[in-house]
Each structure stands twice: as C-alpha cells, then as structure tokens.
C-alpha cells in the first residue's frame, strides 16, 4: 500500500520556470523525503524534512511540510532540462516504515 500521493501525476513546464509538486499522506510521520528518478534508473535522495520542521532548502530545491494537513510540497526553481525526471515523496512513519508515493513525472520543455 502506498501512503504518499503526489500531485500532479505529470507536469510539463518551460525551462527556467518553477515546478511545484505536492504530496499528501495519511498517518503520522517521523520525516518525509523526496527522491528523483531518471528514466530506467535507481532513485536519488534529494532532501529530507523532519516532522518538526516546516521548510527546508537545498540549492534550487525548497520543501515545505504541513503536518496539520499531512502534506508536503517540493519546489524546483529555475528549472533545467536535466530536471526532467520522476519525483517521489517517501514518508517514514513512527514505526520507521518508509512508504513511497506514485510519483510526479516532470518534463522540462526547451
């Protein structure tokens, strides 16, 4: 079963624009992580936000977490062609179980 649900399922934007993806989840968590997956490859860890944090930055990435709404967002600023990939949120529950969502497929148009 998958706890995280990303939306939108797919997103196409022009290079240079910002991309925002959302993730909703169901149960209490220890932390929430975002991963990127290029076509046919393994996943790469991008950023982790703990349940007591509200916002975190890493380079062009900004993640927010709202535990009252059980939701998170990932913002990629000034998108580049190399950002084309699928992005997954993964929730780590109180029992340390990690569950991935279905992902958002991001396509950056030249």
């Amino acid at each position, binding site marked *: 079963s998958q706890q995280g649900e990303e939306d939108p399922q797919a997103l196409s934007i022009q290079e240079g624009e910002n991309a925002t993806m959302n993730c909703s989840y169901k149960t209490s968590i220890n932390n929430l992580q975002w991963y990127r997956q290029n076509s046919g490859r393994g996943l790469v860890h991008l950023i982790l936000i703990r349940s007591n944090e509200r916002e975190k930055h890493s380079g062009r990435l900004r993640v927010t977490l709202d535990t009252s709404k059980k939701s998170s967002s990932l913002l990629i600023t000034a998108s580049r062609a190399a950002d084309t990939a699928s992005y997954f949120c993964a929730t780590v529950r109180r029992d340390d179980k990690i569950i*991935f969502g279905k992902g958002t497929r991001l396509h950056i148009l030249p």
Partner: protein
Amino acid sequence: EAEVAQSPRYKITEKSQAVAFWCDPISGHATLYWYRQILGQGPELLVQFQDESVVDDSQLPKDRFSAERLKGVDSTLKIQPAELGDSAMYLCASSSRWGEGNEQFFGPGTRLTVL
C-alpha cells in the same frame, strides 16, 4: 563515491522459471531494502533487512519470493516460479544505522521481463 551494486541489470525469463537478483550495499550499511517498482508506480517495499535479520517482509509474496542476507552484507532475492505479473524493476537500497532519518541509497535496479 560508494554505490549500491546490483546484477544483472536486465533479465528476460519465461514464466515458471526461477530468477535471482543480487545486491551489494554500500560498505558498512546495516539496513538493506528490496523494492519492486511497476512501470509508472512508486517503489513498493518487498523486504527489509537489519544486518542479517528480516525486519519487514509483510509485502513479500512468500509462496514464490525469498530473500536472504546470510552474512549481513550482500543479499539475494529469488523468484520461483516467475509469473507474468512479476515483470517490473527490482531495486535494492541501503542505509546506514547512523544516517539521518533512513536516507536510502539506491542501486541501478534489475529490470525483469517475464515472457
């Protein structure tokens, strides 16, 4: 930079045959995960090891799937017999017991096609 190794990268087999996948985690990582990822979906955890012990195999179809990590280092995932519905990407990941929040490092995966 240390990486998770997986082999083979691709496997084509006929249904009812046996297949096996191998994973070598990052050196020193105590936790090892096997995931199955169907095209267009997120990874689904099949089994999680802490050292050589299974800590979660609730989603592993035990009638046909088995996993072992005998010395607490590398691991093998086996399917016998393979079915058409097993066609998927099989991902291995590892994490350090000292790492932050279960950050996982993934291997490149094994893409299985069952004919």
